[in-house]
């Protein structure tokens, strides 16, 4: 340590073993730390990040766990994850929609408060936030699906008639009522959680889920024929022959209809 002369072989050996020991200890401790870090990267589905939060893997590199977004949230929506609770990475901000939803402030104070950009300052319109997507997860208990007029989720939605619409259909059970089905439109839903918070059932029938759970992904190669046709202004394949449609009646193979075509050969024990 003291003299920069040629070290003796004993000193060199000591240095090498010490270094090796330190590297070994570091590798061990580092592996343990890496394991904990990987563990902390799993974000539970019900924990929603604040508006403008970067994708989770980027967020965990950007969020310094300072709590400034929590402090500037006017509604006690955001909380910091505490150690040992089955939740997001320790010290990172999140909210649980069923407890306190995001009130979607116009000035987005949480984003303004973030010093690092973990909450993307490019988000200047709260309607563009994507904290999650509301999904009507239980279509057996939702009162509207049962044919009752609850409508609460629809009416509390800050983006009413765009993020949630009520789709009318005939009530087959009663025969003379309508069903007003709440339908979420993902391109307009911000994931604020108002609907989940105000669902009148003991356990919400509509829940905000993270994008990864709430949404499918269209196959890359798939084209919708009708859209392509509209875009082209003509059928996609030229020279198609329009074949006659099979209608009930004589001369068709519709067996249920009188005068229909009877096949000469029938399979045994098959009755119509």
């Amino acid at each position, binding site marked *: 340590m003291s003299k920069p002369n040629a070290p003796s072989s004993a000193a060199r050996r000591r240095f090498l073993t010490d270094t090796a020991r330190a590297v070994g200890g570091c590798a061990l401790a*580092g592996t343990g730390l890496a394991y904990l*870090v990987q563990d902390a990267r799993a974000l539970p589905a019900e924990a929603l990040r604040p508006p403008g939060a970067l994708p989770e893997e980027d967020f965990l*590199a950007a969020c*310094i766990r300072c709590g400034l977004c929590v402090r500037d949230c006017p509604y006690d929506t955001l909380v910091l994850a505490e150690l040992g609770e089955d939740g997001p*990475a320790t010290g990172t901000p999140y909210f649980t929609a069923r407890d306190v939803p995001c009130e979607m402030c116009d000035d987005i104070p949480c984003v303004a408060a973030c010093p690092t950009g973990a909450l993307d300052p490019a988000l200047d319109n709260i309607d563009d936030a994507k904290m999650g997507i509301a999904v009507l997860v239980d279509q057996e208990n939702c009162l509207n699906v049962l044919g009752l007029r609850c409508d609460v989720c629809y009416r509390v939605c800050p983006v009413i008639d765009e993020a949630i619409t009520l789709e009318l259909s005939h009530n087959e059970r009663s025969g003379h009522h309508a069903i007003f089905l709440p339908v979420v439109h993902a391109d307009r839903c911000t994931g604020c959680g108002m609907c989940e918070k105000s669902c009148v059932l003991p356990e919400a029938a509509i829940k905000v889920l993270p994008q990864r759970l709430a949404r499918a992904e269209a196959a890359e190669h798939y084209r919708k024929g009708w859209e392509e046709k509209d875009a082209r202004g003509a059928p996609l394949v030229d020279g198609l022959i329009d074949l006659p449609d099979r209608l009930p009646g004589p001369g068709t193979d519709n067996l249920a209809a009188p005068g229909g075509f009877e096949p000469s050969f029938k399979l045994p024990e098959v009755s119509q």
Partner: protein
Amino acid sequence: MSKEALLVGQEAIARKGWIGAHRFLLLRRASQLGFLALFVAGPWFGLWIVEGTLAGSLTLGTLPLTDPLVFLQSLVAGHWPEMTAIIGALIVVAAYALLGGRTYCSWVCPINPVTDAANWLHRRLNLPKGWQPKRSTRLWVLAAALIVSAITGTIAWEVVNPVTMLHRGILFGMGFTWAMVLAIFLFDTLMARHGWCGHLCPVGAFYGLVGSKSVVRVSAKARAACDDCMDCYAVCPEMHVISPALKGKDGDTPLILAPDCTNCGRCIDVCSENVFSFTHRFDDTLAEPSDHHTPAPDPQTA
């Protein structure tokens, strides 16, 4: 006269009074409490002077401060932070580069009272020093934390960092942080003297590097008056920093220049001969020896 029967600091208390012999300890506790009070005043009493935590804060709505080690981990994890965080980190680095990096440890860090209490108990129980890994271990831990941050793309040390966890716990809710703090207390009390702050903590290691050329320094200016009572070694959390300055020969600087020194000032407190004092790194003058002294042999640090 024999001093075996005397407790550490007895003589300083006799000569300077209890307050005089605990001046910097009291100032440090006041500083630690003061910094905590600034943060706590908002959430507890609605006095919003400082928002946030030690990892990142905003003072009076204008001054941003960012913990530079957290900031560095964020960088290596692949995130380029916004200007607010960059400015905040630069301010903190500049401050500790001047004041002494590990001044953070002894005057600000909320874990310091915990490990100080552990060390007090450890000394009262007269326990053996226990497991003593090399002091450089903390540098390796620091390297490991940065490497894991880079590999996982996550601010890795913040997953386990008791410093920010305790601070956050006081301000936002504890969770199981108390268990972690208790573990450190027990570790320092029973398993390793000065174990956490002196050997393992990468935050201290980082601040030590930041302040390796810092201006504020302790000097053994009056080392000629040293009567080898060893009280400074007994109270110093990084006692290897003392010898080069205190036991230096005529040509050697009396300044404690080792980056491990936390500028806590306990050596100044407990020295009945007033050997030590705070000064700046360009002041390597020696005080005139008051009376004739025979230089003592270099003591074996125990």
